[in-house]
């Protein structure tokens, strides 16, 4: 009885202690901006932010923004300090949003400091960040689909790898062996990738729903299987027949009106079709989960399968369908890497992206938009580290790359933010 009460409390709790922690955190952030950034800045240093995209010919000419570094930093510090005072005195109603905003302020401050006496192309940074976040977001969406119906999917990594591999080989086969047209070949590659993801998703569903194998073990097995199969074929076949690993890259497509918007246009709307597919999926899954009968059923299966079963919902069927769909979404992420980004399959090319997507899903609190937001943060950290190397910032890139993982642990530990997984997540359902 007490356990339930505690859980419920945890779910709705922005406790007093946390309110104070946040307030202090905001104050400390302001202080840190002053101490670490403003103090080491000379009075006449200037940070320049470039907002144009170097396209040929230059389509949009947006003026550069030049800021006096120290002043800008002090303003940013003041904003976080004020937020801290407000939080302690009155309290933000949506404390987590405030936390996000302060974090953003900190990042801007960091960038301002890093760009002192130099210039940073913000649009290209954001563009790269967004592009890098696409596979992560797809991985995270896959996780959302599966876990909303209470099946933990840690094999996203393996499904992505398989999607990438199958996309590469089938696309190349159609293009280079059968001599089909580029678009059709790409389409075939994509569909085959989705098919492979569906198969692996189905395998996960069969193992965890039908055979009630521990979901994490089943996921681990699928990861190893996908690694083994793709590496095996990569070594045995792709290395001999190079033409089977050359599907080409889907060219970017600018969305007519939207891409003309300054800054936002080049960041979001001048990409490969697969990026737009991701956006549609994001919205689609959100609508599906919260505004459709199927979504309601999925969530109830995730929270309380017994109750759902009593109401006549087929728990098993729901899980089969969601996990299979989740596999397809993950495979799409893998196919994105090959067909929209790199143009070939490499052994172990996903390099942990599936796991990062999983972290993004948790970070985003098992919601599609939350997961997407978290994925962009991860993508941003990734994009940022290459820029920082150029700006010669004296922070090892490794530590920057570590930050998202550390933040995920902190979120999961409930120090900041709150993790609310579906209540039945990870448990096999036994019919009575």
């Amino acid at each position, binding site marked *: 009885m007490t356990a339930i009460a505690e*859980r419920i409390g945890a779910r709705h709790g922005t406790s007093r202690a946390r309110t104070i922690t946040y307030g202090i955190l905001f104050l400390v952030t302001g202080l840190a901006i002053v101490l670490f950034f403003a103090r080491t800045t000379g009075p006449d240093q200037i940070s320049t932010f470039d907002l144009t995209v170097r396209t040929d010919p230059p389509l949009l000419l947006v003026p550069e923004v030049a800021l006096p570094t120290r002043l800008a930093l002090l303003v940013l510090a003041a904003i976080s300090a004020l937020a801290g005072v407000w939080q302690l005195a009155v309290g933000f109603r949506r404390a987590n949003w405030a936390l996000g905003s302060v974090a953003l302020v900190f990042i801007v401050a960091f960038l301002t400091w890093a760009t002192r006496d130099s210039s940073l192309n913000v649009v290209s940074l954001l563009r790269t960040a967004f592009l890098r976040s696409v596979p992560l977001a797809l991985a995270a969406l896959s996780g959302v689909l599966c876990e909303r119906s*209470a099946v*933990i999917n*840690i094999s996203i990594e393996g499904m992505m790898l398989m999607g990438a591999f199958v996309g590469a080989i089938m696309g190349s086969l159609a293009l280079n062996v059968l001599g089909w047209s580029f678009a059709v070949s790409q389409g075939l590659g994509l569909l085959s990738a989705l098919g492979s993801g569906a198969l692996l998703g189905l395998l996960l569903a069969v*193992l965890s729903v039908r*055979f009630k*194998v*521990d*979901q*994490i*073990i*089943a996921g*681990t*097995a*699928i*990861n*190893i*299987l996908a*690694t*083994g*199969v793709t*590496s*095996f*074929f*990569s*070594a*045995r*076949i792709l290395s*001999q027949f190079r033409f089977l690993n050359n599907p080409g890259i889907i060219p970017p497509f600018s969305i007519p009106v939207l891409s003309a918007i300054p800054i936002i246009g080049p960041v979001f709307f001048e990409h490969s079709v697969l990026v737009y597919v991701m956006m549609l999926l994001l919205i689609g899954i959100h609508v599906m989960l919260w505004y459709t009968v199927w979504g309601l059923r999925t969530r109830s299966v995730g929270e309380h399968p017994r109750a759902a079963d009593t109401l006549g919902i087929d728990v098993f069927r729901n899980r089969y369908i969601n996990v299979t769909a989740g596999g397809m979404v993950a495979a799409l992420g893998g196919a994105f890497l090959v067909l929209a980004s790199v143009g070939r399959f490499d052994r172990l090319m996903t390099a*942990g992206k599936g*796991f*990062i997507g*999983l*972290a993004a899903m*948790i970070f985003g609190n098992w919601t599609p938009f939350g997961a997407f937001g978290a994925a962009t943060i991860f993508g941003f950290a990734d994009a940022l580290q290459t820029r920082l190397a150029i700006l010669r910032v004296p922070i*090892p890139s*490794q*530590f920057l*790359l*570590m930050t998202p*993982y*550390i933040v*995920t*642990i902190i979120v*999961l*530990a*409930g*120090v900041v933010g709150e*993790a*609310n*997984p579906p*209540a*039945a*997540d*990870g*448990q096999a359902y036994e019919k009575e």
Partner: protein
Amino acid sequence: MQQSPDALRVGLVNDLGPIDDGSFNQYAHEGLTRAAQEHGLDAIVIETEAPEAYVENLRSAVERGCDLIVTIGSRTGPQIERFAVRHPQVRFVAVDHEPAEESQNVTGLLFAEDQAAFLAGALAGLMTEDNRVGFVGGPDVRPVRRFHRGFEHGLDCTNSRAKLLETVVDSFADLEAGAEAGRQLVDRGADVVFAAAGLSGDGALLAAAQDGAWVIGVDKDQWMTTFQEGKVEGSERLLTSAVKHVDRAVYDAVTRAVEGELRGGILRFHLRNHGVGLAPYHQADGEIPSEVKGRIQEIADRLRSGEIRTYVGPDGEDLRESFTGRITAWNWHAVLMPLLAVLSALIIGAFFIGTFDPVVWDAFERGIGLGAFAVWRSVSRAYIALFEGAFGSPARIVQGVQLYMATGNPGQLVRAIRPLTETVRISTPYVFAGLAVALGFQCGLFNIGAEGQYFIGGLATVFVGYAITGLPWFIHLPLAMLAGFVGGAIWAGISGFLKAETGAHEVITTIMLNFIAFRLSDYMLQVGGPMAAPGARPVSPRIMPSAELPQFFPANPAINVNAGIFVALAAAAFVFWLLFKTTIGFEIRTVGASPRAARTAGMSVTRNFILAMAISGGLAGMAAVHDILGVIRFMPNAFHSGYGFDAIALALLGKSHPVGVVLASFLFGALRAGAQRMQAPPARVPIDIISIVQALVIIFVAAPELIRLVYRIREPEEERKAVFTRGWGQT
């Protein structure tokens, strides 16, 4: 409150059912009545008719001024504990309940069910004619487990050829289901049936007795109760009953209270203090040969004197210690399944090798026969290479031996056994990593972060290895090894701590810590990094010779098998000892089985999570110790070890048991060593085939139904389903 003992007011609150239930309620009542009469106590009885009323009844007993409350606690333990804390002035005596450590005023009465059941089993072993004996178990509670295991061991004691057929009824109160279970056992050939399942068990006994089998009762003398002193059909088939003398125990506890000697904690009742035993043979007396009776008497005496033991643990676990005992008691089904899993995985691996080979495709273009031959050659070549790469070519070993005999030159022999040494070398870190994950599983933790712990352990061990100079080896080497262990332990300890304190799921935190460890070691070892050697290669400096693990063949630098294997085997022995022979291990396993139960039993779940995770990480760190101090002698940047996932396969295959893990490690070590040879000409099979085999092994081991389906193996009666992990938010 009445203080003087002669005016003690005693209450009995039964847990469910009428007071004359012919079972514990009635026995407890009898014991209490006798004590009340003898000591002149004031006794009241409150019957509980519905489970919801139980606590209310306890309260009314307190309100009516009871100083001592006797109750049955097998199902209501937590309620008693909670209630007792709020009424510290009242003493509670609870039958079949193990009090929480911190509770002051609860006394639990525990019985050696295993001893009674051992005698019952011994009798069953002597009475069975078809060597088939049945057991009907109730819901999975400790007394039932002790009955079960004790019966099994007793049966084994007098008749090792007898087969024990087991059935579980998931309720203590389902007469019908019990009867069905009893009939089934008889149908399957059991001619003696023992049931420990409350009312369901009664059903089983009645049904089995009426079907003509011998039956043995439980808890109370069932000839008196269930068979109504011979009035019920089948009473002549009741051999005896394995009795718990609850009346004596209650009488004893109350008497102690009167004498002011009742303390909190546990009172144990066993054969020696007549707390358990066999009931009279009644109608069956004439049917039981006198030498059988003599034998049972003798076993009872020897159990009493401690000459023989039941080897049943408090949790019903098997404590048979001798290795041969273990081997004979080995569950062959448990061995068969992993073997079939590996075999099936290798067969599917062969399919991959044979199907996806360009040479085979060419051959098929020239004809079916040629193609089939090419498939055979491709597969056989690969698996022969696998075998020779793992164990060496027999012919070359024989040659080497001959040369050594003839000339005394061991060179060729050493070269010939190199594959074998490679197998041992590769197996060594597997043992460590597999033990790491297995230990986690035993505590209900999924340590998926062996990889990261390996990195951190490696950084720690290599640092101590190269940075400290001038130490003799017997100090430097242990120090470097300890550093590796501690490094891994701290890294995993973080996850353990987070899990225990905040509930953050260890799967995610260990994955995140993997990435962090990877970045950290990348930073440390990159060219110009804090731990990098001068020069253009991203590697650490070479360790001092004083920190190196001793080699078996120092003369041949191509052979790297080293003393690490002894450390690994010692680690396996240590984990075995820790898990199964110490209180710490018992707590770890209890927490693993059910954190809630562990908490009720007064164990610190927090401490056990952190401890198990830290030891687990330390073991993963030891894998790096072996690889660095024994094989490569420095630490390269970004060396992808892959141990994290392999270790999971090992722990699953070894069923999380140290011995199993060692065997599984040698199997995988042999596969990996062989795969190196398989990768080379003429077979040229990518080493990744081993990953495929590994994944399939995991799937088959984790889903034994698949194997059973394929090989048409019947499901065993009762397979312990281990709970490995729970959802993200749960503890």
